[in-house]
């Protein structure tokens, strides 16, 4: 019997400060045992438990992409006991990763479709994973138009800035980067909240267009009406949820919304599915 509670041992290979306020760091991990990397075969949209023995575990979306080999990446906001401990760890430290956990964005269903990615703040990690996956030369032809609306409070709070600007210069992805506000006179992208930019820049929905949304509750709340206005139906809006979790494998019982367990039946749901459950997220 496989023991799903045992984390794979990993070494912290690189730590990068991800935002100007230093509240987010991106950790690159390398598996101590090569064969564990194969067992940890994941899809964009899944998450894992970062495990620090003696401290605890935290469920975090996987920010690296299945097409990136040799490492896994997570961008972590310093919020509680475990994340604070993690922020104080150093390159070379040994810890654990348990996963991959949960379902993923419906890549089969999204083939030959237009995909609109909408993200806000630091909920851009599995979206980064998704974009890298879709832009991979082996995969790009599987998708039609790709639009990305991504916003943060200020330019320095955008995650993965180098990549964002690189994607901005490509012609196979339409980037709509935005910030709530900035006093930088050289800022050449959008200014305004994500819902507004979605309404202005996101494509009108047709039967072949799907939106993936990940962001803080307030952004989601105001983006929904914008998407409805653009003609998106409940089954064309795909969301990734977060809830407090412990086990990550559907057993400990705290992350449920109705009968669905966010950790195992989710975290990815369509709005159609969510509208059948209590809004306990």
């Amino acid at each position, binding site marked *: *019997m*496989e*023991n*799903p*509670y*045992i*984390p794979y*041992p990993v070494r912290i290979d690189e730590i990068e400060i991800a935002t100007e306020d230093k509240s987010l760091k991106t950790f690159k991990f390398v598996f*101590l045992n090569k064969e564990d990397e194969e067992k940890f075969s994941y899809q964009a949209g899944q998450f894992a438990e970062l*495990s*620090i*023995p*003696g*401290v*605890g*575990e935290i469920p975090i979306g996987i920010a690296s992409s299945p097409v990136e080999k040799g490492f896994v990446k997570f961008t972590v906001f310093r*919020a*509680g006991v475990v*994340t604070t401990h993690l922020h104080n760890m150093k390159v070379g*430290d*040994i*810890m*654990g990763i348990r996963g991959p956990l949960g379902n993923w964005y419906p890549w089969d269903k999204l083939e030959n479709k237009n995909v609109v990615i909408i993200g806000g703040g630091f909920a851009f990690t599995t979206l980064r994973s998704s974009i890298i996956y879709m832009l991979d030369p082996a995969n790009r032809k599987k998708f039609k138009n790709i639009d990305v609306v991504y916003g943060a409070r200020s330019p320095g709070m955008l995650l993965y800035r180098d990549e964002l600007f690189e994607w901005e210069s490509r012609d196979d992805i339409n980037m709509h980067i935005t910030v709530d506000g900035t006093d930088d006179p050289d800022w050449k992208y959008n200014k305004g909240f994500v819902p507004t930019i979605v309404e202005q820049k996101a494509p009108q929905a047709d039967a072949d267009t799907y939106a993936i949304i990940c962001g803080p*509750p307030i952004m*989601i*709340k105001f983006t*929904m*009406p914008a*998407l*409805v206005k653009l003609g*998106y139906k*409940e089954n064309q*809006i795909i969301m990734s949820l*977060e*809830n*407090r979790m*412990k*086990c990550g*494998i*559907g*057993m*400990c*019982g*705290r*992350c*449920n*919304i*109705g*009968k669905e367990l966010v950790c*195992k039946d989710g975290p990815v749901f369509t*709005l159609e599915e*969510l*509208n*059948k*459950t*209590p*809004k*306990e*997220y």
Partner: protein
Amino acid sequence: MEIIKIKKSDWAGGIDKSRKTYHLFGPVKHKNHHIFRQLENNIYPDMEYMSSVLSPKSVLFPQSQKILVTSADASGKACHIFTPPEQDHTPRAVIGIRPCDAKAVQLVKLNFDTKEYQDPYWCSAFEATTFVGLAVNTPSVLDFSTSAGSGPFAQEGLDVLLVDCKDHYLAKILSQKGKEFLNTAGFNEKEDPKAADQVIQQMKISAEKAICSVIQTQHLKKKTVLELYEAPFWEDIAFSCISCGTCAYVCPTCWCFDIQDETQGKTAVRFRNWDTCMPALFTRHSSGHNPRGEKIQRVRQRFMHKLKYFDDKYDQGIMCIGCGRCVEKCPVNIDIRDICNLMNAYKPEKESDAGEIKGEIK
């Protein structure tokens, strides 16, 4: 089907014989009530018990259990690499478990033994365990097991059903595990199965007749989750709740747990503890956001889980076996039977009241 007769004068001797092979668990008197626990060599299960305060779920799912350990000594090689502690796979036998508590184990199994993941701690304990049940001849006034998918003589989840016939037990063998246990204990006096089963059937009928408490569940399935979720009665039900969690701790079907880490000296330990959905901390995000921050949401979660979500998910009836423990122990007299009947009888005033969400997250 085989039925064995066990003279009560032979009982203690058989129990002693079985100890050589099995770790025994059973009901033991403790102060003014009974608890279920492992039996040392000179302790015998008290077969006169009515119910135990806590259910026997702890035999498979201890209140606190180490799941992983590692060295926290940075100079060592295996520092911070977790491995499970050694587990005891010695066969165990639970003697005198009530039939409804055994059925509860089957319901809990749906959570711990799934297609995708098997909880190795629970599953290996389950594999090692033989359930020797004791039929309930005189059900308590709080027993509503017959309307909750079980009953005083129910067999589901049992390997042996013992029936107390004054000077002897009739032991109905229900599985190979049960047969092996009786063999090990040296109980092998075969009864005429037909005649003995008739005796058992008679006793079963009179025990079931003695149950005076019932719940109605027949309409729960066809109601939608949101209909019941938005019903007006939750405010009243939750009003007196003090979020103590007693209902969950005494419940044989509640399986929620917490995972915590501790470092003791140079050892780091990860363990799990029983948890309960009643306090706000259960679901609070580290951001402070809490999807069930209000008491009414948590009380509703408890009963919706047991009486609606569970059946919707597994199609195995409700997640309650009618033992009556939570009814007895709730300090403010919240009664699952009343709530179940309310939910079952509930009709929303207007169909359109429930589930009216159009592309907007509230």
